[in-house]
């Protein structure tokens, strides 16, 4: 198991009790490792934030398509009728 994988297993609580104890002990004396854990945790947050940003862009683009393309005209009509809007 490489260090990045070890940190991941530690952060995701997937280590055995023995390995977790060993890791906790290393963390007490190893500043660099503590920092790596912090940055790696931020990495997961960043990846999730990027994923959500891309998902939002995709949904926004789809919404634009639905409110402009011919193939969605019946759906659009149904929605515009709800809000009393002209096509």
């Amino acid at each position, binding site marked *: 198991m490489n260090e990045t994988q070890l940190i991941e297993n530690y952060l995701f609580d997937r280590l055995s009790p023995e390995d977790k104890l060993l890791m906790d002990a290393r963390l007490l004396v190893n500043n660099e490792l503590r920092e790596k854990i912090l*940055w790696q945790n931020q990495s997961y947050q*960043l990846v*999730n934030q990027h*994923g959500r940003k891309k998902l939002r862009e995709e*949904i*926004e683009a*789809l919404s634009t398509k639905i409110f402009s393309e011919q193939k969605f005209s019946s759906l659009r009509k149904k*929605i515009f009728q*709800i*809000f009393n809007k002209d096509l």
Partner: protein
Amino acid sequence: MIAEQTKLTTREDLFIHLYESAFPKVAGWMHQRGGTLEEAKDIFQDALVIYYEKKTGSGFSPDTGDVQYVNGIARHLWYKKFSENKNQTSLNPHTQLKVVEEEPTISENLLKFVEASGKKCLELLTSFYYDHMNMKDLALKFGFSGERSATAQKYKCLEKVRTAIREKSLNKEDFYE
């Protein structure tokens, strides 16, 4: 329910299905409560994000069906929006994000820096950690010979992002919004 049982192959197919089956109901419900079309669109988009994250993250499959579930999320967001700020007429981007997640956000600068410096890696990591794609599909999508090499690359990419964050975060004000 028949449409829901049909295999929807892409994410876009799934969202189109939900727009067609759930959005008119959501829009009608919001219109009755004084909501505008723009508000209904915004809330529905937020509901799709929550639905997607819940479904991919936990393999969650709602008993009531996907359409009913998205409908329920949208109504919940509507009530939440008006109980949080009764005077506000439209959602701003920060309100939208708060509704979905309360965690601190990485700054846009840092995100853009990593997006620019390691696009391919970020795509790979997103497919795994955000979209919860399995290793077999990940290997196929990114052209690896097998799951082992995809796993190895995933950790290399994670290390790369971690190093980029470390470098960038030396400038603290650049870190959180």
